[in-house]
């Protein structure tokens, strides 16, 4: 356990939610709460540092490695710091049929970054993701819980302007 780990804690509101999440699963099966807790942690810290993962491991009484192996398997978890808005852009077939590649090129050019990078002002991180189950409304990207669909260049301009404010 590192010294900094003691400073990593959920806010009181989230701690209450975390305890409720753990209580949903049968006794002795609290490890099931791992994915929900990692989502909750990412909501608070924006990304999952080793210290945060260690904290979650202690909370569930499991080894730190059990947290790391899960956090690295699932693509939604950010293992490095990210910008204020993480744009998760769908690059899968059906979106591409609807012009997804062209809009993606436009977005990259507009932000001046490539996939996996963050803008200099720390506002936007760009991430490529696979099918978001919204194929009839493609091209699609997601920022946190919100889906942005039927994207066009104009829509991209509007969204970026709105979020840059």
């Amino acid at each position: 356990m590192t010294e900094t780990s003691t400073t990593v804690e959920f806010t009181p509101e989230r701690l209450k939610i975390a305890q409720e999440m753990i209580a949903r699963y049968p006794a002795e099966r609290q490890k099931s709460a791992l994915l929900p807790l990692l989502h909750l942690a990412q909501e608070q810290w924006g990304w999952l540092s080793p210290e945060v993962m260690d904290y979650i491991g202690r909370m569930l009484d499991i080894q730190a490695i059990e947290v790391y192996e899960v956090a690295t398997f699932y693509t939604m978890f950010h293992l490095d710091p990210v910008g204020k808005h993480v744009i998760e852009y769908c690059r899968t077939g059906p979106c591409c049929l609807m012009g997804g590649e062209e809009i993606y090129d436009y977005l990259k050019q507009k932000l001046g970054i490539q996939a996996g990078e963050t803008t200099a002002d720390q506002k936007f991180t760009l991430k490529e993701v696979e099918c978001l189950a919204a194929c009839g409304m493609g091209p699609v990207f997601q920022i946190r819980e919100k889906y942005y669909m039927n994207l066009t260049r104009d829509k991209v301009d509007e969204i970026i302007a709105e979020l840059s404010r």
Partner: protein
Amino acid sequence: MGKKILLEHIDVPGIETYDVYRKQGGYTAVEKAIKTMSPEGVVEEVKKAGIRGRGGAGFPMGMKWSFLAKPEGVPRYLVCNADESEPGTFKDHYLMKNIPHLLIEGMIVSSYALGANKSFIYVRGELMYVIRILEKAIAEAKAAGFLGKNILGSGYDLELVVHPGGGAYICGEETALLESLEGKRGNPRNKPPFPAVKGLYQCPTVVNNVESIATAAWIVNNGGDAYAAIGIGRSSGTKLISASGHIKKPGVYEIELGVPVEEFLYSDEWCGGIRDGHHLKALVAGGSSVPILPANLITKLANGEPRLMTYESLSDGGFQTGTMLGSGGFIVFDETACIVRNTWNFSRFYHHESCGQCSPCREGTGWMEKVLHRIEHGHGSMHDIDLLVDVAKKIEGNTICPLGDAAAWPVASAIRHFRDEFEWHITHPAEATQPGAVFKGEMALV
């Protein structure tokens, strides 16, 4: 107009709320099942209905339920698979977001039938906003007495838990989903034992798709025979189809199984036809993993009869001239679509989503992606085409779970039906790598 079972009330304002859903006849299936039917009686109706799993595999739901082991003193679980991630498929997303109570009602009657007191809905993590909608619906149903302890005074207890995934297509495979629900990496399990005997927490478990479970409420209300009377033969009932690609009206449609493919594609009631000024080139009828078919094979069978939207008709002709209904992810390609590029895209998807447990899939998906990448980017050789066929063949059937097959089929079928397009990329690299370039050789457009 086809029969509507799931989307009948989709346009009623406020249908996502308990009050409106209840006014439209919601939760009567729970009342009927718990007050007047035995759990075995509910299983019997679902068996009679003949409904086949709507997640993609098409295994009869009633039979799956009847396999559930019932040892004394061991809890049994129902887990709803809401990890919808198959490219081209977005029906469960649509259903849960718009009519969450339909799934909750289905979960209650299904859990009652199986004797489960704690049931889970595993939703892909990207749909966190839908998870919040479901949690709200659960709270409403609980306040109304349809969930919790002693439901409707029957002594039956049920708790529903919504569980988020973390972004992994593989967790749509039922044993990977169970691993994930236990807080582990989503590596599929070896079978047997099947989940019906050793599933979640090594207890007997049934895993069913969202659409399948939502249908259970209608079956309880109307009876298995009434459901079996809809559709054609072993393709009973209705199916949600997610329509995307180059059509006038993309969206989610409920069809009675048996509608001709051509009618579904061109009728204004559904897809509305190919977008203006374009022609049908190819179609993926059941999600990215099923074989892609060229225009001339998708609407007609080899004997010239119309091909229907049923499990049997879509697979007529085997993989030589047929495909599969799969998850109902209906992806339409017009003549502007490059089959090589799309195949490379799908291949990259499966490589990205392979869990890495089995070598044929882990190595083979990466190999196919690499070879397709070089063909698409003008560096392929003629030998590459047969190499792809060979790699696909060696993945198929040689892995623990069906992700290997799902990765192999799109590649094998694209080469089977569009080989000249692959050859053109190899013989005309300068032309083929121009932005938007598409093979204009002989092909049957409809």
